[in-house]
């Protein structure tokens, strides 16, 4: 057993009315990768905020022992001085500045009165090399992809002399290739003696990199598993997270009759709205039948969201060509309103950015896409609106004290339900669900799947975009595989395996 680098002892943190952490214990050995898993709201991020001094000493109970000393961090720079560096889920880079400027922001190289740019950029290049980036540090951050931006964040952490690196959902915005590269980089750092804590929802990543796994549930640590002494698989971790065995991650769909083609897209091509020569969607043909769930699988950046939004009233892209048929008739949908009228709904992947008005209550969000349904000649019928919101709240089992609650106060899973309610209230025949379970926990995922099943049972068509292979295979009747703007494969879910879907993508990549 190696030396204990960090020990958090009996940490208790209370917010007004809520005990966020309750006697949490965490031991991290020097040179290991320690994974922290748990459902949303379990307290993982709170724990890391306590560690890094975002919640200063005195606002919590318990001790932090780092390198054998009891620490009393007052602010984030205190913990950084000791080599504890946290990389947050949201990238904290200034897009208009160069990589080098970003890397030493607040920590500038040079004298008090002047920044030494030569030193800045040569130092920055050194750290970039360590994370395997070949870009010059003079390149602006906005000109590199998110995968590389994440690496810049890590280089920035290294520049602070990190000894204990905390990565909060580092791969949440990365595609599979970039995620894998990042995880490999972590393993490489481990060889050099770096200690890391990774918080993630993606259990396959945990299995891939972690030496030890601590499960947090409802504000307390449930167990710590040593990956070297027992065999770890995803089901074992899930059991710890939800406190029970989940026998079936995807609810069964029985007796759903698949009917006629409801929507068909032919030769659909979309160009990028800014870079006019770039094809984002390239000659896509697809259809979806009544009562059918069609999955669209692809890596991030494959053009799935762009395809969906361009179909939904041309809300994305330029120079869109191709034809769209609904119930066999060709339609031209020029804006979202026309799409809604054609019984189409697009449930965005970006709940906070494109989906909900967070500062407004559930009631208002539920009716927003169908105000005509709760108003008469521009005058809102408040009673009706309230009843509609309550009806969907009950139907989808949204957990909230009242429909007057602001959506911003809800958890991710409940926000997703409000978003679904909003679109279900428009009474659509075809629903395009873009990453419907992103960032929500295992229990809520299951409920979302049940809602999807109810929808197709009622004869609706569902197009489900997802980058989680098990989900696509588990939920779809038929799967389209998308890569770099094109559909590179179509298969029945019963024939699909993770291997042959990935093979489709790899072949398409080589075919170029």
């Amino acid at each position, binding site marked *: 057993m190696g030396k204990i680098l960090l020990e958090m002892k009996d940490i208790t943190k209370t917010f007004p009315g809520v005990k966020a952490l309750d006697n949490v214990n965490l031991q991290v050995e020097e040179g290991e990768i320690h994974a922290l898993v748990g459902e949303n709201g379990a307290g993982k991020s709170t724990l890391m905020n306590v560690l890094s001094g975002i919640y200063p000493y005195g606002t919590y109970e318990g001790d932090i022992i780092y390198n054998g000393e009891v620490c009393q961090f007052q602010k984030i720079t205190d913990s950084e001085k000791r080599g504890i560096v946290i990389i947050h889920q949201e990238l904290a880079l200034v897009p208009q500045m160069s990589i080098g400027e970003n890397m030493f922001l607040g920590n500038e190289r040079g004298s008090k009165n002047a920044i030494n740019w030569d030193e800045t950029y040569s130092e920055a290049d050194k750290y970039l090399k360590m994370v395997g980036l070949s870009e010059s540090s003079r390149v602006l951050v906005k000109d590199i992809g998110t995968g590389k931006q994440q690496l810049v964040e890590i280089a920035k952490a290294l520049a602070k002399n990190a000894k204990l690196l905390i990565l909060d959902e580092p791969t949440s915005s990365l595609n599979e290739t970039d995620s894998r590269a990042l995880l490999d980089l972590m393993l490489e750092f481990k060889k050099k003696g770096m200690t890391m804590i990774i918080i993630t929802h993606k259990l396959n990543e945990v299995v891939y990199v972690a030496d030890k796994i601590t499960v947090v549930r409802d504000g307390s640590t449930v167990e710590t598993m040593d990956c070297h002494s027992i065999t770890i698989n995803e089901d074992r971790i899930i059991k710890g997270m939800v406190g029970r065995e989940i026998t079936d991650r995807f609810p069964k769909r029985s007796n759903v009759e698949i009917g006629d083609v409801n929507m068909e897209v032919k030769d659909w091509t979309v160009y990028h709205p800014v870079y006019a020569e770039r094809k984002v969607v390239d000659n896509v043909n697809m259809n979806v039948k009544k009562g059918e769930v069609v999955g669209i699988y692809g890596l991030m950046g494959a053009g799935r969201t762009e395809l969906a939004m361009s179909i939904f009233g041309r809300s994305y892209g330029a120079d869109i060509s191709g034809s769209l048929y609904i119930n066999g008739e060709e339609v031209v949908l020029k804006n*979202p309103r026309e799409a809604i009228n054609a019984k189409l709904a697009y449930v965005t992947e970006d709940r906070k950015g494109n989906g909900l*008005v*967070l500062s*407004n209550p559930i009631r208002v969000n539920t009716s927003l896409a169908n105000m005509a349904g709760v108003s008469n000649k*521009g005058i809102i019928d408040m009673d009706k609106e309230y009843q509609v919101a309550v009806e969907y709240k009950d139907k989808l089992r949204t957990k909230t004290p009242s429909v007057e609650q602001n959506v911003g106060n809800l958890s991710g899973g409940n926000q997703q339900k409000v978003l679904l309610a909003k679109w279900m209230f428009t009474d659509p025949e075809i629903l395009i669900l873009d990453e419907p379970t992103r960032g929500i926990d295992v229990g809520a995922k299951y409920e979302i799947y049940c809602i999807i099943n109810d929808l197709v049972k009622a004869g609706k068509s569902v197009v489900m975009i997802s980058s989680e292979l098990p989900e696509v295979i588990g939920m779809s009747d038929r799967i389209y595989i998308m890569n770099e703007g094109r559909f590179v494969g179509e298969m029945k879910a019963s024939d699909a395996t993770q291997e042959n879907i990935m093979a489709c993508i790899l072949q398409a990549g080589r075919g170029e």
Partner: protein
Amino acid sequence: MNTKILDVLKKYTMVFALIAVIIFFYASTQGKILLPQNINNLISQNAYVFVLAAGMLLCILTGGNIDLAVGSVVCFVGGIGAVMMDKNINVWVAVAVMLIGGVLVGVWQGFWIAYVKVPPFIATLAGMYAFRGLANVVMKGFAVGVRNETFLNVFGGGADCYIPDVLHGDGFNITCMVAGVAVALVYTAMVIKKRLSAKAKGYELQPLYQVVPKMAVVCAALLWVFYKLANYKGIPAGLIWIAIVLIAYGYITSKTTIGRYLYAVGGNEKATRLSGIDSRKVYFFAYINMGLMAGLAGILTIARAANAQPTFGQGYEMDAIAACFIGGASAYGGEGGIFGVIIGAVLMGVINQGMSIMGMSANYQSVVKGIVVLVAIIFDVLSNKKKK
């Protein structure tokens, strides 16, 4: 119970601030600020603030967008009207031209802002210069007198711009007092009716400890103001216009779909657009409406002064913006309401008037107003921070 009290305090901070300010000026002016004549002046002199702030609220709701041009538009529109009436053109034609003129200005600015995506700050900054210039052109740089009796009486200028006392009180305007009682009764009846219907339908009810005191305070304030006015000359015409505008905008912002869209666009424009709502139309509506209100404010301003001058309306935009922000409208959009605007406008008016009665120099008055706006916003920012 403690948290309950805190909740109420937080919700009505600006009301308490207003009461504190009134008490302060009551003490420092030996009670002069609450003389009937001063109450009357407070309403008549600040009519433009209420009207412009109501229009400005809609712009601010769409995302903290402001209209810097309204002061110039007030002057421009007022100038047109004054010149027309000076040439003996029918007064109602002149009024219609002024309102339509305001709307056209709104169309002009709204078009650039909504459809060409010129930032509102810049589009209306341009308007601020241009319409001030046009006002000078219209009036040829000189003041133009307004002598039309009908116009002055209807829009709150001259000596007779009060609702006549049909009940012939002696030194006490009975009509005014009756109107006050009626307004208080209607208000009470509406609150009770709303509560009963909510109860019947099993909705969540506001706790009684909040409803009853609020109702009592509002009724007392209404009766008290009308009592004061009755002791002077009765209901000033300006108050009627203020009431019409505030009631209309209270209704628009809370009960109509377009009102809902204003909040939604300010809260999350992308989500609103994807919900099938044309956000461009929403911006366009807000600015056209602002133009209409600027037109009405122009009418009220030249009526009150009984003339139009090329310098009129300077700083009016700032008064309106300040009233909105003091009244709790969010500088980022999506939050705010007419009730807040009323409180904000009254607070600004009381401070203006109180300092004038105290004989404070105009220079220092500006400083005090500036500090009040800043304090109000700081408070808003801090209380929002705590919520998180």
